[in-house]
């Protein structure tokens, strides 16, 4: 039996058993990443809209920087956040290293630029169509930015989902700042890395299948919600 077939069977078995340990790992993955996505959206969407609509010096370089930061290597962010949160670092006294909160921080740093850059593009495209009308109606720049965020909400959901996908699938940063501590900071991706290290490739791949399924289900739900809302609001 090939490793891949074996993995499928293992994955099925793991899901059927709904082992408490697996559930808590999946739960922690989702809790960390959803929290990170929520915070990153709160930061990234206004930043994206402001860069799209605002007229201030340094706007073009900022756009380039935002786009470039989409490709930040997670390990580098992990290291950066690690050094910040380390006892010897500036935020050391908070004692956040090796906690889920540290993983949330690293993921927020990782995906805020993704959400900001994608939403900047979406809002800038809409701004081209809306600008004259909104300015004719007397909308201030911040008000216009907010209106565009609300009006492009269905497209923006894709940007947020892209951030979620990256957050859930990311291993380098959470490994460093979380420490992959059993029962405390072990999430799906660090479990997969651990099982790979132990040479248990079928189990690692099975966990991978479960992770992919979760991401697919989240996307399907978001897509369905979006379709339903789009039909209602045009």
């Amino acid at each position, binding site marked *: 039996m090939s490793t891949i077939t074996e993995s499928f069977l293992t994955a099925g078995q793991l899901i059927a058993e709904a082992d408490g340990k697996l559930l808590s790992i999946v739960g922690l993955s989702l809790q960390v990443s959803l929290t990170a996505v929520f915070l990153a959206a709160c930061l990234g969407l206004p930043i994206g809209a402001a860069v799209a609509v605002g007229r201030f010096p340094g706007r073009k370089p900022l756009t380039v920087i935002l786009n470039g930061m989409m490709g930040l290597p997670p390990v580098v962010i992990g290291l950066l956040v690690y050094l910040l949160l380390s006892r010897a670092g500036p935020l050391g006294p908070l004692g956040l290293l*090796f906690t889920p909160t540290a993983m949330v921080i690293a993921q927020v740093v990782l995906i805020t630029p993704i959400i900001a850059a994608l939403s900047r593009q979406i809002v800038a495209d809409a701004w081209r169509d809306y600008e004259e009308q909104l300015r004719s109606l007397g909308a201030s720049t911040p008000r216009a930015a907010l209106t565009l965020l609300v009006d492009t909400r269905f497209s923006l959901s894709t940007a947020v989902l892209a951030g979620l996908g990256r957050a859930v699938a990311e291993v380098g940063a959470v490994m460093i700042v979380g420490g992959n501590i059993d029962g405390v900071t072990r999430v799906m991706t660090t479990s997969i890395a651990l099982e790979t290290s132990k040479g248990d490739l079928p189990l690692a791949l099975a966990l991978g299948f479960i992770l992919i399924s979760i991401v697919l289900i989240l996307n399907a739900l978001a897509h369905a919600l979006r379709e339903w809302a789009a039909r209602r609001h045009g």
Partner: protein
Amino acid sequence: MDLIRRSFIAGAAAAALALAAPFATAADRFITVSSTTSTEQSGLFKHLLPVFQARTGIEVRVVALGTGQALDMARRGDADVVFVHDKAAEEKFIAEGFGVKRQEVMYNDFILVGPKSDPAKVAGGKDITEALKAVQTAQAPFVSRGDKSGTHAAELRLWKAAGIDLDAVKGAWYRDTGSGMGPALNTAASMNAYILADRGTWLSFKNRADLTVVVEGDKRLFNQYGVILVNPEKHPHVKKADGQAFIDWVVSAEGQKAIADYKIDGQQLFFPNAAK
């Protein structure tokens, strides 16, 4: 405007929910131990820690790294206790004032793992330096951890003992992977290479492919583990009492027995040898 207001209310509600949802915290009382991949991945801690926690109520959070990284993490004050296996590095750590005192806990041994086809003809040997010389002479592929771990340090000592100047003879046959024990074993398995491994990780390693133990039992393959409390004078937040409780327990008769009791397929992985 209702729409924007509605969006805001929904957003605020989601925010409150996300932030209020507390992360499940197992225990308020815990210590952080920086240790090595060999102890974590061999499953020793999974066996040991619940016993300790049941006894004392102290949760032990293990961050598994190479010995070098584990000591660095403790130097920055991110651990209460280090549990590693590189005597020289540990003594340096103490000398720098980062550790209070080094206590020996247990040992296991390193083994030379290689392909069944054995191109260097070293299988069954008892002399590790002869075996390494043969590997180098045959230019047979050899995978090195290359990550400043305890195992990597041991490997470098053994090459030196074999009279081989690695920097001079390194070639395509010598693969410096810069990875943990498990990933390095995965690499060796896929390349049919020789590799120095610790027995604990090897016994719990599943993806062996054509690899097998070729050299074992040389006393130079002895692998001693030590445990050190991080110096509270350097890092005042170190949980001195609970960290010391953990150290006291692993070197106690009960802790030592628990270590001896850990077996995979009936084989004992670690041999307690704490000073009485």
